[in-house]
């Protein structure tokens, strides 16, 4: 155990999901540990009343995924809330407000705090209630359990299941807990399981029961007396260690016998199983960890700003209390004989004003001041931002342009935390298969016996030709389009429609397709009515093979445990015959083996080994006499790879009985082993028979590029976003895909970093690992240096005005990547990549993907976005600042780990350039404005203090102040955060460079933030000083009345409300009725409030009593002051904007202007859209900016 713990500590990557799936590698035999720590679970099967079982007291099957319970909701959610610094501050303030320290009444402090906290709590509660409803639904599902009905199976609810119960699960039902499979409707005790909910894989998995348990039908015969001893609950989905003690014998158990909760029984009528883990002990619940919570850069920066505000708060509070102390001390002179300001009775006073204890008084005053100026800290900021982000996510989810018709999937923002981060992405790291491509394989070409079959061009070829300027010859044979079959895009008049029989190498062709039809793990699904056959396969490649062989006359139609049946065309007679192959063994595919084989006995009673695999492992396994077509095949494979196709080598061999007998024994031995290295032994055994193969040829399947990928990549790179593709493909394939999706372009300089050099290969052959590593390291170092000097040279000669900026593309393979990611080379590698506009990493493993992501993220400090669709991308998605999952064909695992899910890669363009840009802009503006409005308000309080001898009397009525953040200014900000757009979506896409505003963080730079803050302070000064001078001591009405405290407060407060709301009106770019409603409505609401509040009895309304209706409204000077103050407070910003637009316009300013000027000429809008051409000026801008971009990069 200790050893294991250490290992976990060392491996930080184990946090990444993708590494969780890896089996824990250990040489120890865990079975020997059963009964010791970590392996202590004992399950008494079907014996619930056994005293020992009762003693164990395992948890029930009740599952709760909620964050809160009814009992702990209030304390826990409150605790969550008060983890935020700002909220703690407000809580403390609320408590202190009950003491005489408070500058205002306690309820007026508590009300807004309760409002804000309450709103957040309601949101939490609603979310949790939804989770709870799901739980209740799951807990109350029904299952058949033994013993409920006196010796038969009876129904019970899931939550009532106990460990040891025997349950019966029917087809298409979910397993209620982790079960030990006893037997199934099949004689040999197998069943098929769909694990979509667990790992997102849609293919079916085969599970088998132990022989000892699989023979009985437990409806008839009770399963009793079995005891399972196994591991404690853990999160490893793919491992299980345990033994079954049954009828006096011990049987080792493996994951093969375990059915996991939340997976589904498929293609099997029913199964019996014993409950091993229940409820939260199940593997799926153990796995349910929260995804790493990500916070956007803006939010992190916002925290810093809150700290800045806290410092300002402390500074002004301190200043105030020093003055207060001095003034207070002076109130008593001559040792208490003389009172200065006798009217405040300094002789009989509490400690808070005691001139004799002025230091203490000023300390207390400091606390008061902290409360008084608390308006600098926007209490509603966090809750407003949360509301805004949720609404923004709704817009993302509702966008029709990101809805994919075929899969019926809209875009989904799975977290709303990162909306604005979408607008700041600097580097995109993309998976290839399934992300750039469709991941629906089409069989397009093959090479059989040295002859290449298959006409037609792949997309990559078309794209390459287009780039080279060669027009695509229209030689496509239209005949093929008569019947389109999904997964099959093959046309060759020599082979199709059974014509292959007449080919000279018909026998080879027959063997070739037989391999394809037999060597797989697909399951046929015959449609009862039409007789059409469809296949469920583990991988789309396999499906493509089975479909291809079906289309060409080798129809695989039935699979049983031991047989595979085909309808075949006999190549001699040309007639359709049914042939049954006895399936002896399947040597499964794994990423390390890179091949799969089956051993079958054909109807002629001959033993055959059929094998397919990657060229890198297959060619070395060929027999001497099997290499007849090696040269041609290799040639074809190279060509296929260049055309962006995935290739597999197809081989077979005949096995003689004797050899098979010996091998089988060994193989079965390995298989029945229960130790952890079983897999290694099985592989070794499989290795022994997969040799001396005879080459038949190779297949080539095309993974089509998704629609719109090249355009999308083009747009994104125009936006200055760097794109990395991380793929497991061969270098050639990767490069060609790179060209096809315009990641690499003609005229771009390609830097290739690889270790496929002859000297390293020779070293490798010698087997000296250290020497290889050393040489590789040196070689990579050299190549990196060369790359650097190339880019440096290009940068030196580049004239920014020059149109042909030399662009670089970097291609690096997985092996080199391991060295480049080495600590010593990391920096140089990053440096080089930052100078290249696109980077392709080929042959990279999932682990490398995550590592590269981390390197880019931490090395550059820029925002990274990872996009992928498969389980192998999960690590990358979680590591990146933003993870985008493609909700495509390959299950949901990536989506589950992602922050945003889209159906197609091309939607990324809209997600980033439109939604990302908008959200970034909105949030940035919103936060700046928030600080502005709170400073503008908070500082008027401070200035007033200077005129109130810093005694802590606020200038306004308590309730005006407490309503400020919540009622009079909050809705317009939310409207800004939700609806504002600088330019329309169409223009965002038309001028992708606009996106740089976010990448370079122009709208949320410190200059801008401080600018807004100073604007707030200036506004507060204008408001305060203009008001106190116009409402000086003279009469303010015709009737000779003078302006007192209440009039001054109301006038000044009105000015603040008008100023901050009008400031909003002049700083937003987009005025819909909503904005009008909210902005003018807020002002209107202030007056409404004033009238209503002022008409309450004076004991409630105090200084606000009748102040508007009777006092200030009939006074013209109040209104004139309001106009003057509001206008003057807006003047600095307006003038600044006018200057800015004149001298340093922002990019969106230009675009908006441009649109305005171009519209009269372009006539109707549609024509300008259709033309889509960039105006000359913008073309120029683009070049200008690109040059700047590249220069910027070279600086970094």
């Amino acid at each position, binding site marked *: 155990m200790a050893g294991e713990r250490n290992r976990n500590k060392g491996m930080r990557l184990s946090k990444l999901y993708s590494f969780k799936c890896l089996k824990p590698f250990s040489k120890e035999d865990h079975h020997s540990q059963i009964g010791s720590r970590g392996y202590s679970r004992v399950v008494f099967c079907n014996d619930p009343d056994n005293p020992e079982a009762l003693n164990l007291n395992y948890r029930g099957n009740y599952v709760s995924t909620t964050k809160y319970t009814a009992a702990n909701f209030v304390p826990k959610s409150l605790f969550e809330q008060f983890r935020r610094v700002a909220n703690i501050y407000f809580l403390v303030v609320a408590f202190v407000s009950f003491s005489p320290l408070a500058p205002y009444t306690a309820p007026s402090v508590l009300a807004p705090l309760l409002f804000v906290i309450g709103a957040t709590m309601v949101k939490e509660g609603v979310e949790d209630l939804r989770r709870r409803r799901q739980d209740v639904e799951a807990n109350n599902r029904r299952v058949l359990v033994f013993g409920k009905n006196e010796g038969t199976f009876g129904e019970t609810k899931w939550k009532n299941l106990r460990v040891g119960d025997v349950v019966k699960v029917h087809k298409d039902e979910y397993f209620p807990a982790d079960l030990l499979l006893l037997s199934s409707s099949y004689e040999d005790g197998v069943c098929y399981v769909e694990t979509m909910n667990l790992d997102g894989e849609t293919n079916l998995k085969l599970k088998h029961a132990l022989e000892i348990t699989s023979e009985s039908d437990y409806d008839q015969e009770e399963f009793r007396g079995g005891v399972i001893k196994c591991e404690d609950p853990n999160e490893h989905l793919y491992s299980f260690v345990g033994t079954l003690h049954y009828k006096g014998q011990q049987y080792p158990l493996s994951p093969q016998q375990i059915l996991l909760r939340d997976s589904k029984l498929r293609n099997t009528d029913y199964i019996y199983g014993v409950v091993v883990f229940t409820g939260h002990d199940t593997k799926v619940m153990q796995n349910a960890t929260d995804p790493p919570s990500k916070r956007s850069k803006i939010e992190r920066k916002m925290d810093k700003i809150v700290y800045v505000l806290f410092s300002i708060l402390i500074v002004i509070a301190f200043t105030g209390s020093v003055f207060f102390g001095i003034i207070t001390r002076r109130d008593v002179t001559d040792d208490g004989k003389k009172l200065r300001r006798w009217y*405040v009775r300094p002789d009989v006073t509490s400690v808070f004003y005691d001139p004799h204890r002025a230091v203490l008084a000023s300390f207390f005053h400091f606390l008061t001041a902290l409360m008084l100026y608390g308006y600098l800290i926007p209490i509603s900021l966090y809750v407003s931002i949360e509301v805004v982000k949720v609404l923004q996510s709704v817009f993302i989810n509702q966008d029709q342009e990101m809805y994919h018709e075929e899969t019926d*999937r809209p875009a989904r923002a799975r977290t709303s935390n990162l909306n604005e981060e979408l607008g700041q992405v600097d580097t995109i790291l993309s998976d290839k298969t399934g992300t750039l491509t469709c991941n629906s394989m089409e069989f397009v070409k093959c090479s059989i016996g040295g002859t290449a079959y298959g006409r037609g061009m792949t997309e990559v070829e078309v794209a390459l030709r287009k780039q080279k300027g060669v027009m695509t010859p229209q030689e496509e044979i239209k005949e093929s389009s008569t019947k389109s079959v999904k997964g099959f895009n093959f046309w060759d008049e020599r082979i199709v429609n059974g014509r292959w029989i007449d080919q000279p190498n018909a026998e080879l062709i027959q063997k070739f397709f037989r391999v394809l039809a037999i060597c797989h793990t697909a399951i046929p699904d015959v449609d009862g009515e039409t007789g059409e056959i469809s296949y469920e396969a583990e991988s789309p490649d396999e499906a493509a093979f089975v479909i291809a062989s079906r289309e060409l006359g080798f129809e695989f139609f039935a699979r049983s445990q031991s047989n595979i049946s085909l309808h075949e065309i006999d190549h001699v007679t040309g007639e359709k015959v049914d042939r049954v192959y006895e399936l002896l063994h399947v040597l499964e595919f794994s990423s390390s083996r890179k091949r799969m084989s089956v051993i079958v006995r054909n109807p002629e009673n001959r033993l055959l080994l059929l094998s397919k695999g990657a060229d890198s492992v297959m060619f070395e396994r060929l027999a001497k006499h099997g290499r007849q077509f090696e040269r041609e095949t290799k040639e074809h494979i190279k060509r296929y790879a260049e055309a962006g196709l995935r290739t597999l080598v197809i081989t077979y061999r005949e096995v003689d009985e004797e050899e098979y007998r010996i091998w089988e024994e060994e193989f079965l031995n390995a298989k029945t082993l229960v130790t952890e290295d079983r897999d290694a032994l099985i592989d070794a055994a499989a290795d022994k028979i997969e040799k001396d193969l005879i080459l038949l040829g190779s297949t080539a399947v095309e993974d089509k590029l998704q629609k719109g990928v090249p355009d999308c990549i083009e747009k994104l790179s125009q936006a200055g976003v760097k794109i990395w593709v991380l793929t497991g493909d061969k270098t050639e394939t990767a490069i060609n895909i790179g060209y096809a999706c315009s990641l690499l372009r003609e005229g771009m300089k390609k830097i290739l970093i690889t270790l496929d050099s002859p000297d390293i290969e020779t070293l490798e052959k010698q087997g000296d690992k250290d020497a290889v590593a050393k040489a590789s390291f040196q070689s990579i170092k050299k190549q990196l240096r060369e790359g650097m000097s190339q880019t440096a040279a290009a940068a030196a000669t580049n004239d920014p005005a020059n149109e042909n900026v030399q662009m670089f593309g970097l291609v690096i393979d997985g092996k080199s990547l391991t060295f480049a990611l080495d600590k010593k080379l990391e920096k140089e590698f990053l440096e080089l990549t930052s100078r290249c506009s696109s980077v392709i990493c080929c042959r990279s493993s999932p682990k490398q993907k995550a590592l590269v992501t981390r390197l880019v993220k931490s090395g550059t400090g820029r925002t990274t976005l990872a996009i992928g669709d498969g389980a192998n991308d999960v690590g990358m998605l979680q590591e990146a600042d933003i993870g985008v999952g493609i909700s495509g064909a390959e299950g949901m695992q990536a989506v589950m780990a992602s922050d945003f899910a889209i159906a197609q890669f091309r939607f990324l363009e809209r997600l980033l350039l439109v939604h990302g840009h908008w959200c970034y802009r909105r949030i940035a503006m919103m936060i700046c404005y928030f600080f502005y409005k709170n400073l503008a308000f908070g500082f008027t309080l401070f200035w007033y203090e200077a*005129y109130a001898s810093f005694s802590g009397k606020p200038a306004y009525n308590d309730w005006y102040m407490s309503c400020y953040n919540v009622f009079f200014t909050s809705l317009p900000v939310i409207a800004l955060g939700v609806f504002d757009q600088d330019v329309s979506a169409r223009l965002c896409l038309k001028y992708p460079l606009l996106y740089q505003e976010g990448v370079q963080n122009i709208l*949320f730079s410190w200059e801008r933030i401080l600018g807004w803050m100073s604007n707030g302070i200036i506004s507060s000064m204008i408001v305060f000083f203009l008001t106190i001078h116009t409402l000086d001591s003279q009469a*303010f009405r015709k009737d*000779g009345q*003078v302006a007192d405290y209440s009039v001054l407060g109301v006038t000044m407060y009105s000015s603040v409300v008008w100023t901050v709301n009008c400031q909003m009106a002049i700083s937003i*770019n987009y005025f819909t009725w909503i904005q009008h409603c909210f902005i003018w409505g807020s002002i209107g609401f202030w007056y409404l409030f004033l009238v209503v509040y002022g008409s309450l009895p004076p004991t409630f309304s105090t200084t606000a*009593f009748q102040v508007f209706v009777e006092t200030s409204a009939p006074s013209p000077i109040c209104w004139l002051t309001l106009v003057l103050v509001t206008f003057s407070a807006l*003047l600095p910003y307006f003038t600044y904007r006018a200057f800015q637009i004149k001298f340093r316009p922002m990019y969106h300013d230009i675009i908006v202007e441009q649109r305005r000027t171009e519209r009269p000429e372009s006539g109707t809008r549609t024509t300008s859209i259709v033309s889509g051409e960039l105006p000359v000026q913008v073309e120029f801008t683009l070049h200008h900016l690109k040059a700047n971009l590249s220069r910027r990069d070279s600086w970094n």
Partner: protein
Amino acid sequence: MSFSATSSIALGGGSPEASAAKITSKRPKYSRFTQQELPACKPILTPKWVILTFLVSGVVFIPLGAICLFASQGVIEIIDQYDTDCIPLTFRDNKVRYIQGLEDKRCNRTITVTKTMKNPVYVYYQLENYYQNHRRYVKSRQDGQLRSPKDEHDVKSCAPEDTVGGEPIVPCGLVAWSLFNDTYDFTRNNQKLSVNKKDISWKSDRDSKFGKNVFPKNFQKGSPIGGKSLDPKIPLSEQEDLIVWMRTAALPIFRKLYGKIDTDLEAGDTINVLLQNNYNTYSFNGKKKLVLSTTSWLGGRNDFLGIAYLTVGSICLSLAVFFSVLYLAKPRQLGDPSYLSWNRSAGGGR
């Protein structure tokens, strides 16, 4: 600023498939709201609008300023500072002792009217360096007690002027306690000029804040005595001096209405004021002034508003001129891309 209402129609929205969509389709529903295509005006600061805005505001503000200034200039105001002058010369070094002593506090002042003052002429007393907005002071009152005899005993917030010998003070608190107690008697040509002290407070205060059945109790009975005493037979709602005083001032320099003179004062009139100089402003060096003033529609005399309007108006006009010159001399083509802000600020703020 210019505004243009664009009513854009979705480009890809509302495709025919949508109408024939299956019931289960997850296609987002089209609405201008969800697609963020609401009709909107998008203000742009084009040079034309910048200049126009400045010009119009200048043109509106300057006349407004002139009107305000004119109104203010039309107000006739006489200010007489008497705090020092009303101290006998012998007491000039120790004014506080004089004011706290029992000496005769009478003092004669002469005011000459320079311009005709139409009635009503408002009489104010002005105090300076007096912090009626001190938090301790402001809080030291009890609105409930002023309003209804029921709350007579509710004097918590009034300390230290809450009780005398265990009996509550009505009205309690520092504000009431420190009530101003200088008095003025005006004579013109040996004829008494009557000062109308009715209706010098706000009506709502008399009606709702100060009770008709609340009478002063134990007021100024404690020691020390703060200011004016109140006639315990007159209800608070009629004690207008108190009501005026209780409306605390916002700033340390303030005037409060003393009364109104309902006859015109002619130019050249000499007015004698017999003054009781009781109120102690000397310990904190506060000034005391007597103010006679007429009003205009804008209120009393204060040129600040007019000057401020004129200033802002001229700033706007000069900005208008400045920008016109700028645009003429150095026109920047709209949409000219060679000005791009982040080129210069690149790398900033990260």
